[in-house]
């Protein structure tokens, strides 16, 4: 009796297992094209460049070299300069941009602001503007005899024109200005979207209870946007550490003056395409970026974790 009951049921279950197997095969077949593309164009290059980073040599003449590339990093003044520059851009620019984007989002979210739609579009527009067009424009505006210098001199802020493109310090400032101009609106849109989801009566309750506007921003808006702030900070960190376009376009690909704006990405590009190609070493520098991004993202997640 017990057998006759258990037999058909076990038969059914093995049939079920076979069915599950063929279903999962179907699933793999459907995802195969995508997986193949990801494998060829993403996984393979990543692994290949990891292997490459242990090879040294000029052009195609590559020989296994163990950790010599990593040793070379420490003795390469341009690499160290690029590392310092990239870190400087990241440390200075990301906080400025995040705070600016938050403040702008806070202001644009106010009911009392007129023409909010216009400002929102105007602030967002730079990140969809053509990179080349805006670089040309920036170079013109910040030229020694450009509109920025003449304005600064006209209002008496400076006596002499600033060498935006020739002075090592101001060249860095220019790069920071350029990427801030381009990406602040992009981050702001995330904050605006998140702010739409916050119950308005939270702010009304705070207003009635006498919480001043700055405290509503600092103690209500910022904590409630924390997940979005974390997200945009990581995105911006990654973007800044991989910074390439702006510097390349503003300095004709040289990272000048005197390597004062060279970034890791630009250095990788130069190692590969501008100087005598050094693929192995370039791959090693790339992995420096990978490690930096991983470590910084981890630190940011750690700092923003929910302590409760």
């Amino acid at each position, binding site marked *: 009796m017990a057998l006759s009951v258990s037999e058909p049921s076990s038969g059914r279950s093995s049939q079920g297992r076979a069915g599950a197997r063929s279903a999962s095969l179907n699933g793999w077949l459907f995802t195969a094209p995508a997986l193949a593309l990801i494998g060829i164009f993403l996984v393979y290059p990543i692994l290949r460049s990891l292997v490459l980073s242990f090879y040294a040599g000029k052009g195609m003449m590559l020989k296994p070299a163990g950790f010599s590339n990593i040793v070379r990093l420490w003795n390469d003044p341009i690499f160290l300069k690029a590392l310092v520059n990239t870190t400087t851009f990241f440390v200075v620019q990301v906080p400025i941009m995040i705070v600016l984007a938050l403040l702008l989002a806070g202001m644009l979210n106010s009911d009392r602001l007129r023409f909010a739609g216009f400002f929102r579009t105007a602030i967002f527009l730079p990140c969809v503007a053509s990179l080349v067009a805006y670089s040309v424009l920036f170079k013109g505006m910040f030229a020694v005899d450009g509109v920025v210098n003449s304005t600064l001199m006209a209002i008496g802020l400076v006596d002499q024109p600033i060498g935006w493109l020739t002075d090592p310090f101001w060249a860095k400032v220019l790069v920071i200005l350029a990427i801030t101009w381009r990406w602040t609106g992009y981050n702001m849109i995330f904050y605006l979207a998140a702010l739409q989801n916050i*119950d308005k*009566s*939270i702010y*009304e*309750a*705070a*207003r*009635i*209870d*006498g*919480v*001043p506007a700055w*405290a509503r921003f600092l*103690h*209500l808006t910022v*904590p*409630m946007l*924390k997940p979005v702030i974390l997200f945009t900070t990581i995105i911006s960190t990654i973007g800044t550490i991989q910074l390439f376009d702006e510097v390349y376009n503003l300095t004709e690909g040289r990272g000048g003056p005197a390597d004062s704006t060279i970034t890791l990405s630009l250095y990788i590009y130069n190692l590969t395409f501008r100087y005598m190609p050094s693929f192995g070493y370039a791959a090693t520098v790339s992995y420096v970026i990978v490690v930096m991004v991983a470590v910084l993202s981890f630190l940011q997640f750690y700092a923003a974790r929910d302590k*409760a």
Partner: protein
Amino acid sequence: MADVRLQAVRKTFGVLDVIKGVDLDIRAGEFVVFVGPSGCGKSTLLRMIAGLEDISEGTLTIGGQTMNDVDPSQRGIAMVFQSYALYPHMTVRENMGFALRFAGMDKQEIARRVQSAARILELEPLLERKPKALSGGQRQRVAIGRAIVRNPKVFLFDEPLSNLDAELRVHMRVEIARLHKELKTTVIYVTHDQVEAMTLADKIVVLRAGQVEQVGAPLDLYDDPANLFVAGFIGAPRINVFTGQVTARLPGAAEVRLDGFAERRLVIPLTGEAPAEGTEIRLGIRPEHLTEGGAESLPIEIDMFEHLGGETFAYGRSRSGETIIVSTRNGRHLKAGQVLAAGFDASKALLFDAAGLRIR
């Protein structure tokens, strides 16, 4: 405790008139309920008192002081929102104490007030929890606690119970009534639920389309509504309305005929003058005033029942097609299709003119 006075208060949003001239006197310590259908302007009126909306015209005084242009935080009010509006990232303790910091209050005083509010509202075991770890009723109590710690002169509530389930709603209703007894603060409470209004209010303000329809004590509104709208809004189930005409003017009464019951003449006692013969009228009789048999009675065919156990609501149609509800305590024997001789006491019937205004 403070009195609140509205004089010819209006609110327009662009071209939309939302509050169309409201005059209202609220005495210190009174529990006033604004009630009316959704969209009639209750919240807008409350938010004008709170200072969250500008007053387009008219004056608002709280405690004798004109408040039209005073900042919300300086009006001596505290408000509880329908959505609770708790700060999601703060604990219950922080939620209640947060705003006090900005009033220049020292830490010990804040702690003392939070503690005392927590005790009154039985929130002590929950002080370290965040709002997402609380039930709806607990969140509501935190929102009330956040209002209490401010020691306001006037409490404003905007539909505070409408996000709670039925049982909790009854419980919180009792809590709020108890709190008002304890704190003796002026309360202005907005709801669309007439049961809440009837049970909580010292004074009910019935609003319709931005205008006050009637102001009065709950039972006064029930017994003596000024018009058909108030009669329909106060009391559940809804009052039955029959159409008809005046057939004769009697001393201290009007003799009427109801459509569909042409053979019957009903004599409705009045304190004032009866309307002229032939005038179109509406006769309102509350479901609980219709009984089986009685002096004046109308034959009503019953087509559906709701047995609540103690009480039975019988739904039927008058011969002229109006839906009639009879509420009775001994209706278990009633059957569908049966014709009920629904009797009533004519002195409890309410007479209205064709426009819905009461004829007393």
